[in-house]
C-alpha cells in the first residue's frame, strides 16, 4: 500500500468514524442490549438468571402476553394498511395534481408540507383537544347539522385507532406528496410529449408511463410506511395514553413494549425481560418486512 492509498484510507476513516460511533452507540448497542436483556429472567429492575428464549415463548404462548401482543400487532397492521391506502394514494394524487401545475399549486405545495414540520407531540396534544367530546371536531359537526355523527372519537373502541390514524395522515401526507411530485417532475418530458402526440389520455398516461417510472419513490415511501407503522408510539401516547385505551383498542407494539419494559404508573410494574423480547421482535419484523417490500417493488421497476 503506498502513501497515497494510506492517506485516502485515513481520510475515509476520519469521515466515517463519527457516524459509525453514533450508529454503534445509539443503535447497535441498544439493539444488542435488548437482545441480551431478553434472555434473562428479571426480579423487578434487576436481572436474575439466564433463561434462554423463555421470554419469547411466554410472549407468543402465555396469557396475557399473547393476547396483548396479537392485539397490538393487529393494530399495527391496521396502521400500515390505512396509511398505505389512504395517505399514500392521497399523497400520489396531490403530487400528480401539483405536477400538472393546477392553479395555486405553489401555495398547495407549502400548505401540504407545513404539518410535516410540526412536532408530533404538539400535533397529538392539539388533536387530542380537537377530538374531545366538546372539542372542535364535534362542534363543527354540530354547526353543520350533523349531530348524529358526533362521537367520543378517542374514547370509543371502534373509532379510536382510526381517529389517531387520520390525525397522523393529516400530519404526514405532505411528505409523500412532495416525494411523488419530485419523482413525477423527473419523468422526461419527451416521453410525455410523445405520448400526448400519440393521443394518449391523462388516465392512461399516468398508469402506463408515469407510474412505472416513479416506482423507486413508491418503494421508498412503502418502506418508510412499514417502518413508521411498526414504530407508532408518540401518537398513541399523546392521544389515548400508554395503556392504549379504551380497553387496549389503540394499543400498538410500541406502546405495549414501553408499558411492559418500563411499567405504567397506575396499572403495573415493569417486566424488562418480556419488554426486551418485544423490542427484539419489533426489530426483526421491521427488518424483514422492509426487506420484502424492497424486493417486491424492485421487481416492478422499469428503466428507460
Amino acid at each position, binding site marked *: 500500500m503506498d502513501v497515497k492509498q494510506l492517506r485516502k484510507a485515513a481520510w475515509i476513516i476520519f469521515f466515517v468514524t463519527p457516524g459509525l460511533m453514533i450508529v454503534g452507540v445509539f443503535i447497535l448497542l441498544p439493539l444488542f442490549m435488548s437482545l441480551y436483556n431478553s434472555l434473562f429472567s428479571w426480579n*423487578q429492575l434487576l436481572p436474575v438468571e439466564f433463561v434462554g428464549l423463555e421470554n419469547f415463548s411466554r410472549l407468543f404462548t402465555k396469557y396475557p402476553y399473547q393476547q396483548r401482543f396479537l392485539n397490538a400487532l393487529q393494530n399495527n397492521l391496521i396502521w400500515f394498511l390505512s396509511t398505505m391506502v389512504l395517505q399514500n394514494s392521497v399523497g400520489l394524487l396531490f403530487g400528480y395534481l401539483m405536477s400538472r401545475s393546477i392553479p395555486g399549486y405553489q401555495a398547495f405545495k407549502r400548505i401540504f408540507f407545513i404539518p410535516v414540520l410540526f412536532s408530533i407531540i404538539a400535533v397529538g396534544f392539539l388533536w387530542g383537544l380537537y377530538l374531545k*367530546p366538546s372539542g372542535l371536531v364535534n362542534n363543527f359537526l354540530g354547526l353543520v347539522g350533523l349531530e348524529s355523527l358526533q362521537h367520543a372519537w378517542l374514547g370509543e373502541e371502534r373509532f379510536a385507532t382510526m381517529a389517531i390514524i387520520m390525525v397522523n395522515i393529516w400530519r404526514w401526507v405532505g411528505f409523500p406528496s412532495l416525494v411523488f411530485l419530485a419523482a413525477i417532475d423527473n419523468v422526461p418530458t419527451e416521453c410525455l410529449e410523445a405520448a400526448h402526440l400519440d393521443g394518449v389520455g391523462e388516465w392512461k398516461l399516468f398508469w402506463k408511463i408515469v407510474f412505472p417510472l416513479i416506482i423507486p419513490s413508491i418503494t421508498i415511501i412503502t418502506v418508510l410506511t412499514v417502518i413508521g407503522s411498526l414504530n407508532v408510539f408518540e401518537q398513541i401516547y399523546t392521544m389515548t395514553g400508554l*395503556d392504549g*385505551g*379504551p380497553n387496549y383498542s389503540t394499543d400498538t407494539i410500541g406502546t405495549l413494549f414501553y408499558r411492559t419494559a418500563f411499567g405504567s*404508573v*397506575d396499572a403495573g410494574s415493569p417486566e424488562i425481560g418480556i419488554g426486551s423480547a418485544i423490542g427484539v421482535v419489533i426489530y426483526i419484523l421491521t427488518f424483514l418486512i422492509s426487506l420484502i417490500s424492497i424486493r417486491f417493488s424492485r421487481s416492478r421497476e422499469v428503466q428507460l
Partner: protein
Amino acid sequence: MKRFLLLMLVCTVAVSTLFAAGTTETPVAGSQAKTEIHFWTWRPEDVDFYASQIAIFEAANPDIKVVQTAHKNTEYNTILAAALAGGSGPDVFQGRAYGGLATFADSHYLEPLEQWLPELKNYSPTALLGATSPTDGKIYGSPAVSQTVFMYYNKAIYKELGLSIPKNWAQLIANFDAMKKAGYIPLANGAKDGWTLETMLGGMGPAFYGATDFFTAVVEGKKNFQDPAFIKMIEKMKSLTAYMPDMFMGVSYEDMRANFFNEVAGHLVGGSYEAAYFNAQNPDLDYDVFAIPGEDASKPGPVSVYADMNFAMNAASQKKNAAVKFLKFLSSKDFGNSMIRELKMISSVPGVDASSDPFIARVLELQKNATPFIFLVGFRYQQPTGSSLWQAAAQGVMAGTLTPAQAAKQVQDGIASYYKPFQK
C-alpha cells in the same frame, strides 16, 4: 484552497462539539459550596407548595439547596425507573406505595430508612404497610399521606334543588334524577382514562361487593371476582352511565375535574387528593363529601382508603446526609400540618392535628368505615395487576363492549394466572 477551507470547517465543527460537551460537564463554582440535592414529585399542581416548603427548609439549612422537579403523574414511575437504573436519579423523591414501592425497593434502588429515621416506629401500622416491601419486610419510605375515595358533591346545587345527602342508593339516584332535570350533569366522571374507573370502583364498589369482608375473602382465595356480589357491583356502576356526561367515553380526568369545579356537574367520585385542586381552581366552589351508600339505609357507606405517597431516598445518592435532613423535614409535624392546611391531604405523620381543618375532619369521620382500596392494596404486586385488568375491563363495560360477567371473568382469569390462592 477549497480543500483547506473544508478542512478548517471540519476542524471547527469538531473542536466546537468537544467544547460544547465540555462546558456542560463543568460545575458552576458558587461563592460558597452548597450541597445540592434533587427532589422529584409527581404533583405538578403542588409545585408552589413544595417550593414554599423548600424555602423554609433552606432557611434552616443554609448549606443545602433543594432542586425540585415535578413530572406528569402518569409518566412518573417510568421516568424515575429509567433515571435510577441509569444512575442519575434524584436524591429524595415521592415514592408510590404497595406494589409501586416494591418495584423500586426489590431492585435495591431505595435506601432502607429505619436506621436513618428512628421516628418511623411511631407511625401507624396501616401507614407503614404501604411503605414496606413484602419481600424483605424493611421500610423504604416515610409515609406521607393516606387517600380516601368518596363522592364530592356541590353544596350550592344541593341547596338550590333542596336535596340532602343520600342515605341509600335509591336516594342517590333520586338526587341524580333531580339534577338531570334541572340541567346539571349529575355525575362528572368519564371513562377515557382507565385509572379513573378504578377510583370509581373505590368510591361506589365497597357498599355492593361487601367491603372489607370481601377484600379479606378474595385475598385469602375464599372468594373470587366472579362472585355474584362483585358482578352486581359492576352492573350498578354501569347503570351510572345514564348520569355521566354526554360521550363519557371521551371524558378524560382533566375534563371531569373541570366539570365539577366549574359547577357544570353536581357530583364527582374522586379521591381526597382533589380538594386542594378544587380550592385553587375555583375558590368559590362550595362542596363537601359523603360516602356512597349501598341499598341498605341503616348501614353507613364504606370508603376505600390507601396509603399513598412515601418520601423515599435513593440508595445510590452521594449526598445521603443532606438527603436525610430533607427527609426528616418532610417527616416533621410542621410539614405534616402544612400538608393538611394547604394541600388538604391526610398527613400520615403521627401527632399532626388533622382536625384543625373541617374538610380533613370530615374525611377522618368517614374513615371510621374504611376498607382497603381493593386492587391497589391487594393485587398490584405482579403482572397483569388487578388494577390494569380492572381498568381495561371496566372501560369495556362502560362502553358496552363487555358484559359485567365477562369483565369479572377477565379480571379473575388475569389474576388467577399467577395468584396462588386462586389456583387451588
